[in-house]
């Protein structure tokens, strides 16, 4: 047997892992209409729980809200000392540890359903995506808080040693039996799910609920209970996969989350419907990846483009082209709507006040506030790009950070390497990023909603692998640090270390902050104008109902392309500003999964308005909101965890985001004031 066939056989282990995650994603989607980005993180939490039970007899407790913490903070006393682990009386035997961990997984499923996703039944896909991202962030952070981030725990395999240490000789290729065992178990789980959905009462009811929840309820089917059961099944499945494969993959807070991308590709291939297509598709992806990886090594002519990592994108795009259109809809899903996209009212006094306040902070503020304000403004610009593409047009993009990376790399190529001066170099870089945006927009012509989120995430992976790590001008990885000179125009410099009459000897000098403020104001005005323009109205029409918009003569494809292009340009501006701020470029600044957090923060701020973008900017890493918050409460290592939980809570109780909440409160106040005036007025 040739080496390629051997690689195919050896893919059974990775294939089994992707397949097990893919069928879990399909199960959750079929049962509740949620594409669960947290599936891998849940698997990881349960696997860690298993290691704790088996090694120490402990159950990890995620950080819990402390109701008396403000009192403790004020009086500097400790009233509650929450446990981080609950001891269950010494190490548990393997079987019991598995059972214990899976019981916790089942309870987790119930909690996720009743605590989170039941409340989101009638919300749009974006809200569910954000909630699942919040859960993912919370679980990842909780794992780091409880177990640390860098040392994998000792995990005892549940596959018998006999299988682990013996190998099969398949036509001359040596393959360990445990890889086949993994594959067999996964395929058995697939068959079980298929059987359950096809022939059992549970499956029939779940399918009925998926087709039309209201009719199913009229027929006496308890759709809610079905969904709860499915969530339990989904988390137990995820947990079992985690326990099963962790000895093969090792256990870190993030690795199962990384496996989600190929698993999502397979699930999308299966249109989130067929367990078999998802499982076999996942195995196919793993095989394809290994064969491509081997071809890069084996064949001189084969391009070294990290094609193995790009394969999931190719499969996803291929699936879109071949199978086309949208995911099968659930009646309930269609009901939701995105947050309102308000027309910004031009109030010069108020705007002037805020601009002056920002400028004052940048010029005279203490160090933390100055840097926090600059980070906030750059973050707000990045979120403005999401306001356009997601808030106005309803297209979920998880590739915005990749556009910032393209722009930064472009700035290095045009500015640092080619010596093109400011502002031509950053504008060229932004133009290139805009082209990338237009390319990423192409799949959006056929897909929408959560499936578009997956496509754009895969596109971000492709940009990372092909552009940032590939050979070419825009390569970031492995290139010794390229620094950026401070931008200057007509002899006036306005970079982070440029001189300035006030506080000019402190980094970052006010010059850069003021420059960013000017750019932010210009872009905010641009986005505001866009919202009020005919193009903006067409965008909202597309967001509301594509078919109706098309019927009314709106060029839906053109609007989507325009939105992605404009959004990519705005993201690129943020990218170049960030590059100037950092003074250099590193690939670690453009991690693919950070896109999820950016979308989530944008949603938390309010994804459909300029004010929401400003709110979101305050929440970014080292943003002004974080700085102010830490004046009062030092979140320290809990920051990411609190952010994750806050996202979930926002999705549930306040889907309009902070901006929506703020508007609602102001409106309530206004109504109260009017009533009061009316009551006081003489009859």
């Amino acid at each position, binding site marked *: 047997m040739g080496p390629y066939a051997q*690689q195919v056989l*050896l893919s059974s282990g*990775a294939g089994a892992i992707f397949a097990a995650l893919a069928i879990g994603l399909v199960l959750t989607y079929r049962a509740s209409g949620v594409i669960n980005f947290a599936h891998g993180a849940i698997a990881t939490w349960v696997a860690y729980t298993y290691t704790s039970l088996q090694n120490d007899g402990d159950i990890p407790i995620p950080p819990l809200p*402390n109701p008396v913490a403000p009192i403790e903070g004020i009086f500097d006393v400790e009233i509650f000392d929450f446990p981080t682990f609950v001891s269950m009386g010494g190490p548990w035997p393997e079987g019991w540890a598995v059972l214990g961990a899976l019981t916790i997984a089942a309870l987790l499923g119930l909690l996720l359903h009743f605590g989170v996703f039941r409340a989101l039944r009638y919300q749009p896909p974006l809200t569910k995506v954000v909630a699942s991202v919040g859960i993912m962030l919370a679980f990842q952070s909780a794992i780091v808080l409880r177990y640390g981030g860098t040392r994998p725990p000792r995990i005892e395999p549940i596959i018998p040693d006999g299988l682990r240490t013996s190998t099969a000789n398949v036509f001359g290729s040596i393959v360990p039996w445990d890889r086949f065992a993994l594959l067999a178990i996964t395929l058995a789980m697939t068959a079980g799910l298929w059987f359950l959905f096809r022939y059992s009462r549970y499956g029939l009811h779940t399918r009925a609920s998926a087709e039309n929840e209201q009719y199913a309820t009229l027929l006496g089917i308890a759709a809610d209970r079905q969904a709860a059961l499915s969530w339990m099944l989904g988390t137990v499945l995820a947990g079992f996969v985690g326990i099963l494969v962790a000895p093969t993959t090792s256990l870190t807070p993030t690795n199962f989350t990384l496996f989600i991308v190929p698993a999502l590709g397979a699930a999308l291939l299966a249109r989130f419907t067929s367990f078999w297509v998802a499982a076999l598709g996942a195995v196919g992806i793993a095989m394809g990846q290994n064969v491509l990886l081997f071809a890069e090594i084996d064949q001189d002519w084969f391009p070294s483009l990290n094609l193995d990592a790009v394969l999931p994108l190719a499969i996803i795009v291929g699936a879109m082209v071949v199978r086309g259109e949208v995911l099968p809809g659930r009646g309930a899903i269609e009901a939701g709507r995105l947050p309102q996209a308000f027309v910004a009212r031009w109030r010069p006094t108020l705007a002037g006040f805020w601009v002056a306040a920002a400028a004052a902070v940048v010029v005279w503020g203490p160090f*933390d506030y100055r*840097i926090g304000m600059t980070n906030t403004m750059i973050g707000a610009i990045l979120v403005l790009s999401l306001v356009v593409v997601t808030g106005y047009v309803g297209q979920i993009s998880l590739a915005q950070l990749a556009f910032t990376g393209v722009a930064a790399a472009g700035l290095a190529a045009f500015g640092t390497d080619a010596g093109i001066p400011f502002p031509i170099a950053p504008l060229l870089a932004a133009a290139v990023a805009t082209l990338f945006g237009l390319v990423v927009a192409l799949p959006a012509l056929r897909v929408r909603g959560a499936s578009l989120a997956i496509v754009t995430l895969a596109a971000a992976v492709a940009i990372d692998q092909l552009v940032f790590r590939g050979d070419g001008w825009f390569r970031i990885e492995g290139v010794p640090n390229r620094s950026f000179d401070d931008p200057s125009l007509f002899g006036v410099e306005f970079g982070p270390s440029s001189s300035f009459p006030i506080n000019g000897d402190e980094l970052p000098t006010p010059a850069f902050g003021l420059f960013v403020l000017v750019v932010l104001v210009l872009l905010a005005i641009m986005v505001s104008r866009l919202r009020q323009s005919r193009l903006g109205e067409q965008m909202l029409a597309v967001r509301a109902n594509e078919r109706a918009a098309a019927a009314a003569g709106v060029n839906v494809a053109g609007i989507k392309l325009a939105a992605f292009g404009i959004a990519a340009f705005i993201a690129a501006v943020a990218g170049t500003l960030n590059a100037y701020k950092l*003074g250099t470029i590193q690939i670690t600044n453009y991690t693919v999964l950070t896109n999820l957090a950016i979308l989530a923060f944008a949603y938390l701020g309010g994804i459909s308005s300029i004010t929401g973008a400003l709110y979101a900017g305050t929440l970014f890493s080292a943003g002004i909101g974080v700085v102010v918050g830490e004046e009062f409460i*030092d979140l320290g*290592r809990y920051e990411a965890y609190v952010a994750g939980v806050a996202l979930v809570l926002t999705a549930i109780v306040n889907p309009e985001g902070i901006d929506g909440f703020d508007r609602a409160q102001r409106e309530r106040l206004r109504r109260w004031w009017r009533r009061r005036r009316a009551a006081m007025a003489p009859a």
Partner: protein
Amino acid sequence: MFRTSRQLPILSAVLAVCLIAAACGDDAGEDPADSQAPAVSEEAAAADTDSASEADSTAEAPDDADTMDDTETPDDAGTADDAAPDAAEPAPEEPKAPIKFGAINMQDGVIAFPEVGESIEIWVDYWNANGGINGHPVELELCTAGDDAESALACAQRFANDDSVEFVYLGVVINSAAVYETLGPAGVNKPMLGNLLFDVPDQLQPGLYSTDPGTLALAYEALRYAVEEGTTSMAVVVDDSDVGEATLGLVDFVFSSLGGETTTAVKVATGQADFLPALTAAGVADTQGLILLIGESAACQPTRDGLEALGLGDLPVYLGEWCVGEEFREAGTSEGWRTVIGHNGPLFGSDPDSDLVHQVYDDAGAGKPFGLILPNLVNMDFAFQVLEAAAAEAGGLPTAEQVHAAATARPYELLLGPTVSCPGPGLWVSTCNSGARVITLEDGQWVGLSPFNAAPMTFFDVLLEG
């Protein structure tokens, strides 16, 4: 779940406040870094003015600032005591001004090294308990960076702005480019002491002085030792990262120049689901050895499993110290593998330095030091000796220029073994130590296979071409 619209915001606000507030009180005390708090407080140390002033009186010549190699017992150990008080001399003098020890470490985020931050705190407390630096109590200001560039830059700018901070210590800072840009000669030119040189650009930074040999020197020593023990054909598995990319060409170049031959190189993406296909693709079955350059602990067990599955459990594997640790020792993961390190850290129990490290950690109630703590402690000792020399030269608080001068003044013999000399050779200015040695795990005990050998750093210049 929520039945009225009024309940929702109220409940969410209450929950949010509670949750945010939880960080103040819930389990902060159980954070590993908190629970293993240093045994000696800074206040106590600052109060120890007698020993501080006495130490000052005897630590005038930098050359006299001895290394911890001379340590006999933990109590009288270390350079602080070597610069130690003459018992006959009367002491009470004005307490010396504290030295501000600005430090940056990745403490937050999914990729975080809180144990390194903790080791900085423990070691600073140890200094203070033993008289500080040249009699000056050390005031640690540990700035927490996350796994994002923004927070690392913010820390760098904070210290750049703070005139009372004359130098900055780097624990583990992966997003370091912006830090170098701000603190290095292109910025405020404050000396940067420490950091682990994961990446090629880390090794080229003027103004940075690190005792970590860096990936290139470690790889060189591994390959040199491989040839020495007769391994002349080698498969290479690297991670798909800057380091991996940079190291791939180097391994091939260096190994062939040493008379060996690399057969196949495989890049493995972060979070690879299964290592077996990569190991097979690397053709490990047809080679005499495997050089594993995947710099994460999560790669250790899958590599061991993969090799054993292929019946190659005895194949010599050459790697860095990411598989050094109690869990891997107990599980036998690294048994027989050739681990290359830039210090003697894992060889606990075989020399006084190790005893000292153990003792200080035991006293702090902080468990056994492992992983990156060990090279960080070497960096800490280097920082101590440099600052001690600079303070002696200054006759008070040293300036940035004096720290620069002290760092480059002479070689330093350091805790846990290496002798370092700054700046590093040629372009590799921040690589003050190119010495590395090979150790192995033999029947559950770490044993040395080679002494420290210095890598010829200028040999790697070819990597920088183009």
